[in-house]
């Protein structure tokens, strides 16, 4: 196929970025929306757009969703352009920002927006911006993680800027409300919906772009993640099948964990399947299996070769992460890792892993050992986050029988008129991922 042979990911990504920046800086529309699949260079885009807007002399406010995201952006901006004065608007809580910001002289920090007026770029969370009042709005704003922002949060800050660039990943976890909001379902401005949904419902003419290349996901993962979670906005891997390699100095000892590691190193995916059993969330066997896989990944002297450098990089603890659905599962895995002498590997829930990147991830399947599937466990975004954090390989630990669990899931959801249906839904996406993993299965009885 000639189109495939001609596909140059770098050029495709550059074209998309140029078009986005052109619309942002010179377009006629008040808003520009950018969909960014996992690892497609969203942060790079945000930093670049911010710098170009600052260069053009347009006062810019940046809205992110969490303090960690805000601090991360400040650090990236400082790294790219150390001379640029940046305002970090923060809350009046204790420890409101990352201490690393104190080392940057060009970053002015304050809990009052008035202290930061005149700076080319001011960055804060949506929650903090919602308390700011201005006489004259900012000429420009960048709204980061716009798909994770609720419509009502955008309502509270949209009066602060004239025009904005909205960037986010539509495949990750949707925002939610802790009380019922059915009475507004179907309204274009449903306050519990995503900011982008409201924005586009009211401004359908806004230019929508997407970043077409995932630089994080390897060639083995991009098609699956794209098909299962982004069927209407497909993307590709920036690297080819031979570009990434994961090798281990120590050969397999033949155990389940070692075999699944080899499978994942070879094919990018590995399913370590434990015997079917109904378990509590913190299934001790599964938790131990996850910890053992991590321990063996480290013990076997992994080396990751990628396009980033010629020499293989050692697979160290900071390049591995464990993902779970629940906090207590994360806590149990952490404890198990401490028992195995591996305290420094990141273990977190899908919510907290959003936006992060590792070489290898080990995932405790959200449905493993459960007596039944629930809407929470079937949420598309949860599985999408867990299966799209890795550059090289992803090992999923799961008890057998999840496919039946999905088939037995009672489908009696209520339907609200006028709402946009998310399809494929989590049920469908889970089936797709499981079907793929089934071919990478290592059956193990610990």
């Amino acid at each position, binding site marked *: 196929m000639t189109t495939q042979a001609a596909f140059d990911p770098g050029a495709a990504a550059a074209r998309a970025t140029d078009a986005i920046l052109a619309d942002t800086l010179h377009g006629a529309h008040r808003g520009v929306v950018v969909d960014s699949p996992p690892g497609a260079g969203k942060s790079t885009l945000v930093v670049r757009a911010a710098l170009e807007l600052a260069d053009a002399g347009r006062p810019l406010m940046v809205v992110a969703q969490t303090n960690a995201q805000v601090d991360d952006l400040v650090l990236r901006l400082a790294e790219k352009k150390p001379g640029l004065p940046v305002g970090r608007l923060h809350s009046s809580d204790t420890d409101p920002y990352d201490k690393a910001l104190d080392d940057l002289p060009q970053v002015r920090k304050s809990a009052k927006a008035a202290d930061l007026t005149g700076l080319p770029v001011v960055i804060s969370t949506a929650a903090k911006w919602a*308390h700011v009042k201005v006489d004259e709005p900012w000429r420009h704003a960048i709204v980061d993680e716009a798909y994770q922002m609720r419509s009502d949060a955008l309502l*509270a800050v*949209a009066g602060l800027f004239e025009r904005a660039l909205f960037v986010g990943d539509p495949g990750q976890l949707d925002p939610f409300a802790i009380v019922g909001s059915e009475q507004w379902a179907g309204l274009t401005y449903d*306050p519990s919906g995503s900011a982008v949904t*409201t*924005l586009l419902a009211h*401004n359908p003419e806004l230019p929508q772009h997407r970043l077409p290349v995932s630089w994080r996901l390897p060639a083995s993962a991009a098609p699956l993640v794209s098909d299962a979670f982004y069927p209407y906005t497909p993307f590709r891997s920036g690297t080819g099948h031979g570009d990434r390699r994961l090798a281990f100095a120590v050969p397999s000892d033949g155990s389940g964990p070692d075999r699944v590691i080899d499978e994942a190193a070879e094919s990018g995916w590995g399913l370590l399947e434990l015997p079917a059993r109904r378990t509590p969330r913190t299934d001790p066997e599964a938790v131990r299996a996850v910890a053992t896989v991590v321990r063996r990944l480290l013990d076997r002297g992994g080396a990751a070769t990628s396009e980033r450098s010629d020499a293989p990089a050692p697979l160290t603890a900071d390049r591995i992460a464990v993902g779970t659905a629940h906090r*207590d599962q994360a806590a149990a895995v952490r404890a198990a890792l401490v028992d195995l002498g591996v305290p420094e590997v990141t273990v977190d829930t899908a919510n907290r892993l959003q936006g992060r990147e590792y070489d290898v991830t080990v995932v405790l399947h959200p449905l493993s050992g459960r007596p039944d599937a629930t809407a929470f466990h079937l949420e598309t975004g949860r599985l999408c986050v867990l299966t799209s954090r890795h550059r090289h390989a992803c090992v999923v630990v799961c008890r057998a029988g999840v496919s039946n669990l999905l088939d037995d899931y009672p489908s009696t959801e209520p339907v609200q008129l006028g709402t946009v249906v998310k399809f494929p839904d989590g049920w469908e996406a889970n089936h797709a991922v499981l079907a793929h993993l089934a071919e990478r299965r290592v059956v193990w009885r610990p």
Partner: protein
Amino acid sequence: MSLISTLARLEAVATGHAQPAATVRHRHLSDRPLVFVPLTTAGEAGAPLGALLGTDRDAPRLLVVPQPRDRDLRFAFLAELADVVLPYVDGYAEAVEAAERTETDPETGKRVKVEAELCADAPQLIVPSRAGIDFVRLLGRSMRFRRTAEQDPETPYPAPPRVPLLGRWLTHVGERARVPGSALLLAMTDVLARHWATGQSSLEDQHLGALLAWIAPPDDEPGTEAALRAELARDAQGQLLCPPAGPATDPAFDNRLLAPAIERYDRARTAFAAAEDGLEADDRLGALTAAEREIRDLVLSRTLPTWQKVWQGLDLLRALPAGAHIEERWTRDRWSFTGHRDRITAGEPPQPRRDDAVTAAGKLAAREREQARLEAQEALDDPLVMAGRRLSGEAFAGEVTDVVMAYSESRRPSPRPLITVRTGDRPHLAERVRVYRSLSGKPQAAEFVERAGDDLIVLRIVDKMGRGKTPEEGSVPDKGDPVCFTLFEHEQRGGAKLPDPEQTPWTHGGPPGEAVLPEADPMTAEDLL
């Protein structure tokens, strides 16, 4: 469902009796609630069939629509309903107390305290079940846009004078019922299920008869059997012994009793209308009255058992001691009532069909705040609720084993005492996580420092110790004191400042435009309500 409530349900199964799900009452109950037991006609979107209502358990008022498809009869029903409900509501509008309210000063934009009136008490409507709440909303929606002859002399079918006003009040309490912890409109099944765990599922708990069968079974019968009877037992004519709490009726009732009775009524009415002389009319009026009486009796027979059960439920709930925070939440209900009273007095139009973007966002934010407040307050008021939070790692209780005085590193050092708590709980603590305990009703904050052992937690107390160098008396726990800290905050912060509706930004469609009086629903020959 948390394990603690699961256990309570399983214990209920094992003992045959409902088990406590709360040790105190978590909802305000009025001394004089208005109980409302409505029935609707099947298939006819909210067309009322009748209702039993009132504030006196021994003297309910029965309202009946003998032919639900007849507009005049429906209007007569709604007018009567207004005659009962509105005087009850108005009865709370007069007595006020002086209070303060925070408002935004239009000139300076600052938040300032202003003197305000607050109604000393508020009305409380109680319906049997959640479906009853939906029905109240539906009634409100159907009435509030109606036009009376006075409002619009041209209207072809003028509504009785007070009907639109009743619609606005029902809409208001229906909307308020969506606020967590509010009590202007309550469903008896919801309130009972909040306080008792039965040996059946929460789905089955929505049947008022079955729910009460578990909580207070007649003659100490096992709950399972009593509930089963309440759900399914029928008499010789195939009618349920415990009629559903409504507003929907049992199809067997509709088909075997109600439909023939309505048919007889229709016939009697036609005959009456066709009467040719006074004597005949007199005769036929008697027949018509008898036919109407029959329908009234039928409606009474289906609503009276539910009426009695609602009052029985009230008795059970009143026997529980009141939670410490319910008065505070009721005060918010009183503000809500006062606010709506003022809007009506000021001549504002009825609530629109749909909220605008700013109103919707404001309501959602307020409800999320109330939800968090309710969860915190219920835990502080009720050790059984707190037990659930402790189990889920959101709180811990224990005994202080050590207190070490320490000070902050500032120019004027303030006390920052370190306390060690021994606890069997497993809270989700991480570095510098804040925890709170209730100190004479106010939250005192502390920071997590470290775990000093398997069951020892070291905290640094950071506030509520006064301005001096030594902490105020009683502001730091002593060795041996029992303490309970929560990871959740006890009080809720104010939410984001939303724009005025006329400042709605372009992202949300811009300003909604001039508020216009919503059009009344068009009347057609076959409209239903």
